[in-house]
């Protein structure tokens, strides 16, 4: 017969201070575990939602990011005139030749300089990114040096309010609008007219070509046509895959950092659980003897103590996840090593992260409580009763 669950629960309740301290230690470990997973997930979600599945992006062969890429005018024009490309609302091909340059701006929070992407946008650029909509002000007029800034740039950097000017390339660039691109990478960009921005930086080549395909299934055909053309020297990616790739290095870094930290930390917490459970067993020797004398088997004693340890772990896990859930409202902004530019993203809590964190906390409890539970189960009835 099994020892009732309430027995385990009430034991934890009786030793509130000890239970609380042990669970608090575990909660902190779970908090770190959950927070890093949330961060890596938020980064992935932001970059994945930046791309659209129907868009193809062409870069110079061998360049990993759009900042490094360069496509000559002739080559870029050839890429925007393929039959796979859809026709936009204006009756022209839904494809954009864009240029991407980094400029240094001063961060509001720290006063330090960080790199921000300034994108020279083409006629079709907005239509290709339906996530982008105007938040305040107005759109820049084509053919003028007017620019608009993403919401994350507007809130994170100094000197980028509507009516202010940026200065680069021997010119003033008036800011006329702020755009909202949701939680995508575009929110961390500044947009202007490509034909204005290229000469300002002395460029004669575009950075990328973005093509809206009339069917996402046409991607292989488009890719092959471009990559097989020896004049173009370009490589083509699905926009979703391209942006996901941009998060690889950071995500790997965050995940490795988070996992190795939590593994080390969890040893501390498991030792805490072990101390608590050992003392819980030691303080109840007579009680365990009585239970055994009443006919409870070794197995059910073992289960009861393991359950107690699991409950202890779960308590810590719930507290830790609850603490981490509060981070969902916090935005995180840092330089993406891969693109060398600033990217803002949110901590994102998904069901699988909650599941993983709770499982992890229970596991910590079980590992910490196993040896004490074995000790409790292996007690000799007579000797245990004698200590009373």
């Amino acid at each position: 017969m099994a020892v009732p669950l309430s027995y385990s629960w009430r034991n934890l309740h009786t030793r509130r201070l000890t239970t609380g301290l042990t669970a608090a230690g575990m909660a902190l470990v779970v908090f770190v575990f959950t927070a890093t997973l949330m961060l890596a997930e938020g980064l992935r979600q932001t970059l994945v939602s930046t791309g659209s599945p129907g868009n193809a992006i062409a870069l110079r062969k061998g360049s990993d990011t759009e900042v490094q890429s360069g496509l000559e005018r002739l080559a870029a024009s050839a890429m925007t005139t393929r039959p796979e490309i859809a026709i936009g609302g204006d009756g022209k091909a839904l494809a954009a030749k864009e240029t991407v340059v980094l400029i240094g701006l001063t961060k509001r929070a720290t006063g330090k300089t960080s790199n921000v992407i300034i994108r020279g946008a083409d006629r079709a650029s907005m239509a290709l990114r339906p996530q982008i909509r105007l938040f305040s002000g107005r759109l820049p007029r084509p053919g003028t040096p007017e620019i608009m800034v993403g919401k994350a740039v507007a809130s994170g950097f100094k000197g980028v309010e509507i009516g202010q000017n940026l200065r680069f390339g021997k010119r003033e660039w008036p800011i006329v609008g702020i755009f909202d691109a949701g939680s995508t990478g575009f929110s961390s960009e500044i947009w202007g007219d490509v034909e204005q921005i290229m000469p300002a930086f002395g460029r004669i080549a575009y950075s990328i070509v973005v093509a809206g395909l009339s069917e996402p299934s046409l991607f292989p055909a488009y890719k092959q046509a471009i990559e097989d053309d020896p004049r173009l020297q370009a490589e083509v990616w699905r926009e979703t895959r391209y942006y996901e790739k941009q998060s690889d290095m950071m995500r790997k870094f965050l995940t490795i950092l988070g996992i190795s930290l939590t593994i080390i930390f969890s040893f501390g917490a498991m030792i805490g659980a072990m101390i608590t459970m050992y003392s819980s067993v030691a303080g109840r020797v007579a009680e365990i003897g009585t239970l055994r004398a009443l006919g409870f088997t070794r197995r059910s004693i073992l289960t009861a103590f393991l359950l107690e340890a699991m409950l202890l772990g779960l308590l810590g896990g719930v507290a830790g996840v609850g603490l981490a859930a509060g981070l969902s409202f916090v935005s995180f902004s840092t330089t993406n090593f891969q693109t060398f530019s600033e990217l803002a993203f949110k901590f994102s809590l998904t069901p699988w992260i909650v599941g993983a964190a709770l499982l992890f906390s229970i596991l910590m409890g079980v590992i910490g409580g196993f040896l004490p539970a074995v000790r409790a189960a292996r007690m000799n009835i007579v000797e245990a009763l004698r200590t009373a």
Partner: protein
Amino acid sequence: MLLLRLVFKNAFRHRLRSILTIVGITIALLAFGLLRTVLDAWNAGVSAASANRLVTRNAVSMTQPLPYAYKGRIRQASGVAIVAAGNWFGGVYLDEKNFFANFAVEAEDMFALYPELLVPPTEQKAFTMDRKGALIGRKLAERFHWRVGDTITLRGTIFPGQWPMTIRAIFKGARPDTDETVLYFHWSYLDETMKVRSPRRAGQAGFFMVGIADATRAAEISKEIDAFFFNSQAETLTETERAFQQGFVSMSEAILMAITAVSYVVILIMLAVAANTMAMSARERTGEFAVLKTLGFRAPTLGLMLLGESMLLSLSGAGLAVILLPSLAKGFTQNLAQFFPIFVVSSTTIGMALLFGVCVGICAAIVPALRVGSVRIAEAFRRIG
């Protein structure tokens, strides 16, 4: 004296529990020490910077080039001794996973600017003579098992194409914080090749390293250089090498802050473990303390006893951690060499670990000591278990 013995005996009365507590504290402090060392490693470039070097780059951002012709103008600024052009090359060896820093530099000027790069004279000459030669750090050579005379090919990400070069020299760092995982090759190799492949991108330098004789004049000289190019197509920003490196570090500031925060979280975890042990041992001995009180021991003495026990445990843990930390860091170096070229445990880290050991010892004892001090004798005797 007797009290001290009592403290010692009591601290190890539950041997298993005491050992577990000490191990817990040791692990937590080791984690703390490693995290601090990671932060130090991040800042290594800043601490390795020399006060006698300035960096001139494009004011718009680090990724924008400057005309090579600026070199002559910069040299005319008063107090400037040497100017060397350089480019972040961003080349990849076989696969992106094999990341290491590689720069195209003007070799002769660079040797004058960086006295901390120690190269045998014959190798230095061989490198200077061979335009397609490369100079690599000792750790980089170890990582890929490269030797002088080997030919390697980098794939350009910023400068397209394949770039074969021959390793002509291997340098050692004169100081422990010199980065020995870098590859340098000749700027002229880059420039000559770009002249052929895409002439518009030739004659451009990513940055200029400026050597000045008098470090105290750094600000003044920086202003003078930037004034030369004000309102030109490529305005410059000149800052000390330290500020330049700091710029890189502050880009990932959010991550650094998160790591710092986490390094204190681990101290809290440790506190929870230690406080738990002290609370348990005080509670179990309530009856004993009542006896001691009856014998005439005062509350402060009993509190001091608990504090002593707590300190004994936490300091044993801290001591163990401090002894193990350097060797653990060495083990990490082998795995993290590509991310953190410099990975050395600083004395500040060790000092902080010991300090936190003391703090935890004190904090863990506070609540139990207060309880023991305030409990009434009769009440304590009445309690069982």
